[in-house]
Structure formats: structure tokens, C-alpha cells
């Protein structure tokens, strides 16, 4: 049997599958339905320094093979996270990635410092790509200089591996990726949701309380795979790929395009067993093709020339 083990930015994962921030709460919510210890890692909902109430409802709308959300980083703040959510995660036997966002570079540094003090946290994910909140959000993620600055400052404040989550809502994701790498990012994750909106024609109203939201799910998979491929060509740090992954085959598309790990987001809503099925499917794929390690598939895309 082939090995699914990967090392992403110093995170030793028994398989490449983690959860996408914001789709899995703190893991507890799904722990009745799947054995979360089978995951390669868990990435929790983005936390901010202070509690945030999030955007006005409605916050969800379904679109063809996808969904729009406008949650807006609702969370109880980092202290509540440490007190209420971390104890559960500490008891699990998998690496924990905590996603953080802030309004200012100072916010990020303070979050990184507070969370670095927690031994049960294995890595930080810098969410500079949330399309749904004034806080944190995309300002940092769509400007090379700002991205570099927030990454290097956060890196200084942190003792944990730093994964930077990129937004697809930019003209040149490779440039941002390179800037983050140069600024000291240990890994990248992509993609966050794609800006989108929908209108209820009979009432002339937007379907979301905040008008615009983030598109996720199978609809965006081709965009996400393409971005992973583009970014993988220009950086040397590992990538966690995500965007519409439902099956092992979907996950392998990302890996072959250049991702070392994958995150499952919207698929959890469709089928909570999805991450497990993906892990099992990856095992079968290695076996079928006689591949000894999933790492041999990372970036293995064959291009005629």
C-alpha cells in the first residue's frame, strides 16, 4: 500500500486531507458523524481578536453546482476560541490549523502571538482573502506589498508554521503568492471563495443580506485547479489546494496540478463522509497505479511539448 503521508510547512499529516476554514466549525460539530481523527489535519473557522457578529441574514444562496455565503467571519473572538473550542481539539490526535484574520497588521501579530503560546495548535493560516468582511479580508490579499507586509510581521510574532490563504479575486495570484513566499510564508492555501452575487427577480432584491458573497463548491473547481497550477509553477513552498473538492478524483486533480495537501469545504455540507471517502479513494488510486507515495503525484501533470 502506498503512503499518504505529507509534510506541509512542517506539519506532519498522515494524509493530505484537511478541512477548509469556516466550513467545519471547530470540528466538534461533525465529530458525531465522522471520526475526525482520520483527517490529515483540521483547520478551524477563522478567529479574530474581538468577537464579530457577522453579516445580516440571509447568508446563504444556492447556485448551479455551488453556493454563495456571506457569513462575514462571525466568531466569538480568540479568547473564547482558546477557552471553548481548543480543549476539544487538544484531545484529538491530529494537527490543528487555526485560521486568523484582522483589520490591521497589528491584529494579526497579536493573534499570532496569543495562539503561538498554545501548544496544541500546530499551524496558523493567515486569512487575507475573505471576501465577506471589511475586517481582515481582501485588502491584504489583493495587493502584493500589503500581503508581504502582513506576512512578514505575522511571521515575526509567530512560532508556528505560517500558511497564507490566497484570494482568487485578483488578476495575478502568482504575484501575490511569490510576495508571500518572499515575506516568509511557510505554505500557501488556495483558493478562498470567488466574489459572486445573485438576485431574486420577483422582488428585485439581492439574495444575500450583504448583496455580494463568496462562491464555493464544484462550480469553482476548474478555477481553483488552474490557480494551484499557476502558483505551483512559481513558488517552492507547499500548497494546500481547495475549491469544489467532492471526491478523491477532485482532490487528485489539485495534487497533480501542484498541491501537497487539499482541503474539503462545501463538500462537508453535501456529505459529511466526503473527507473519509477522499482519503480512501486516494489509497485506492495509489494501489491501482502502483504509486508508492502520494508525494510522487504532487505536480506530476504531464504536458506534451
Amino acid at each position, binding site marked *: 500500500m502506498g503512503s499518504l503521508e505529507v509534510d506541509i510547512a512542517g506539519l506532519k499529516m498522515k494524509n493530505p486531507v484537511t478541512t477548509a476554514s*469556516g*466550513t467545519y466549525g471547530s470540528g466538534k460539530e461533525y465529530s458525531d458523524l465522522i471520526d475526525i481523527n482520520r483527517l490529515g489535519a483540521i483547520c478551524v473557522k477563522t478567529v479574530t481578536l474581538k468577537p464579530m457578529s457577522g453579516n445580516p*441574514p440571509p447568508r446563504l444562496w444556492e447556485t448551479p453546482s455551488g*453556493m454563495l455565503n456571506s457569513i462575514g467571519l462571525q466568531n466569538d473572538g480568540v479568547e473564547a476560541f482558546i477557552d471553548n473550542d481548543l480543549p476539544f481539539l487538544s484531545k484529538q490526535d491530529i494537527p490543528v490549523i487555526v485560521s486568523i484574520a484582522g483589520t490591521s497588521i497589528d491584529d494579526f501579530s497579536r493573534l499570532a502571538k496569543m495562539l503561538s503560546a498554545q501548544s496544541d495548535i500546530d499551524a496558523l493560516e493567515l486569512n487575507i482573502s475573505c471576501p465577506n468582511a471589511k475586517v481582515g479580508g481582501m485588502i491584504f490579499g489583493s495587493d502584493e506589498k500589503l500581503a508581504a507586509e502582513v506576512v512578514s510581521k505575522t511571521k515575526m510574532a509567530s512560532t508556528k508554521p505560517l500558511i497564507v490563504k490566497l484570494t482568487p479575486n485578483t488578476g495575478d495570484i502568482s504575484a501575490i503568492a511569490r510576495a508571500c513566499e518572499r515575506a516568509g510564508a511557510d505554505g500557501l492555501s488556495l483558493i478562498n471563495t470567488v466574489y459572486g452575487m445573485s438576485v431574486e427577480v420577483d422582488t428585485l432584491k439581492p439574495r444575500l443580506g450583504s448583496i455580494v458573497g463568496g462562491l464555493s463548491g464544484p462550480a469553482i473547481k476548474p478555477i481553483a485547479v488552474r490557480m494551484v497550477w499557476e502558483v505551483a509553477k512559481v513558488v517552492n513552498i507547499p500548497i494546500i489546494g481547495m475549491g469544489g473538492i467532492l471526491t478523491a478524483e477532485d482532490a487528485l486533480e489539485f495534487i497533480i496540478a501542484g498541491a501537497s495537501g487539499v482541503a474539503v469545504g462545501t463538500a462537508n455540507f453535501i*456529505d459529511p463522509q466526503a473527507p473519509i471517502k477522499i482519503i480512501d479513494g486516494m489509497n485506492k488510486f495509489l494501489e491501482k497505479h502502483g504509486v508508492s507515495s502520494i508525494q510522487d503525484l504532487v505536480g506530476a501533470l504531464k504536458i506534451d511539448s
Partner: protein
Amino acid sequence: MHQITARVVENKEITRDIFRLTLFAPAVARESKPGQFVHLQCGVNQSYILRRPFSVHQTVGVDAFDVLIRVVGDGTKWLAARRPKDSVNLIGPLGRGFTIGAELKRALIVAGGMGVAPLVFLALKLAEEKVKVYTVMGAASKDQLLDFMDLKRLTRKIAVSTDDGSQGHKGLVTDILGKEIEEADPDVVFACGPLAMLRAVAGISRRYSTSCQMSLEARMACGVGACLGCTVGAKDNYLKVCSDGPVFDTQELGW
């Protein structure tokens, strides 16, 4: 909470575009409480991807349960087309159901349209607990008064309104609610139905200083409290319909 691929026992169109779907799922049937719901996957390879939430309507023996489904879109159309031996993937039971206090003596049930779905199950439970139950029920017309006979059997008095006057009071449930509250003098009002009705029921109950629990609806993604997508604005925060509810005390909501 379980995830189960449940076999369809029966699927019956009980009135135009409303189906009673019976699913074999022992663990869910045993654990469900009135007001809880199940999250149904309505096909694979469909262009819509999310599950759809449905109240547990009634348990059938110890191994199965019913949902009442009104066909309103693609997901419910898919469910309506299920036949015995087909299967449906479900997650449940989910959410917080109705709270039946130990002291509860008298209760008034208010059902509007499809809102009746979780209320027969509730009436049964209340009857078991020896609570005196009164019902006020409204629908568009007589043939849309679902579960009328069941509720009638389980309650001391059932008052009815229809939009077209084909049975009972012609008008809204809320036209006659005050009078029924006065008569029944309930400790609590339990309501389910369209949002506008629930808002009005909350107001009337408050006027009579009667506590009130109501089951809300919202678009859902996860159904288990993980995505924060189904929130409803409460007094000074947002509550999750799927896991803080779907049943809320009107006080929690600040209604």
C-alpha cells in the same frame, strides 16, 4: 445524530403536491423529539448541491419516521419521485425541538399551512405527558388542512381558519388566536408556520403574557451548526436556526 442511507418505506401524495415520505431509520426514529429535523440529500449529480431540511413529522413504529413534503422546487420534486426501495441519505435528528417543561399543564398549538408538520408529533408527546392540548389551525383551504383528524383526536378543542372560508373562520389563524388563548388559558403557545404568521403569533402571545415557542425556517448548508449560514437575528446577536433552534422561545429572539 446519525448519517444514514435510509430505505423508502412508502411515499404517498396525501393531497395535491404534498407527500408523506416514510423512511426506515431506526436510530433516527428512536431518538427524534418533536420539533427536530432531518437533513435530506435530494439526489446526486444534480445542479443543486445542498441538503434540504424537513421536520420529523411522526415516528412510525420504532424503526421508521415520516416527513411531510410540499413540492416547491427541484429538491422536493426529487423527493416526491422516490419510490419504495429507493433510498435517501439523511442526517438526523438535528436541532433543538420543543421544550416541554415538567410543570406544563395546558398548551395551545398554532399550525399554519405546512407548519403543521412537526406539530402532530408534539401533540402526541404532550398527550403522553398528560398536558391539556388546544389547537388553532389555519390553511389556504379545507383540503390543505393537513393532519386535521389527528390533531382533532389529540386535542380538547380545535379551532380552524381558512383563507377561502371553506372550513372554519374565513381569514387568518391570527384573527382567532386571541380568543382561543383566552379560552384555553395555556401555559405556553407552540407555533409553526409562515414567518408573517409567527411574527403575529409572537405579538399576540406577548400581549397575553403567555410564553411562546416557535419553529423557524432558514436556508441551511451544514445543518449541524458548523457553517453559521442559517442565522436569525436575535436581540443582540445571531442564533443558528439549525442548532440553537429550529425551535426558539420568542424571548430568546427578542420578538
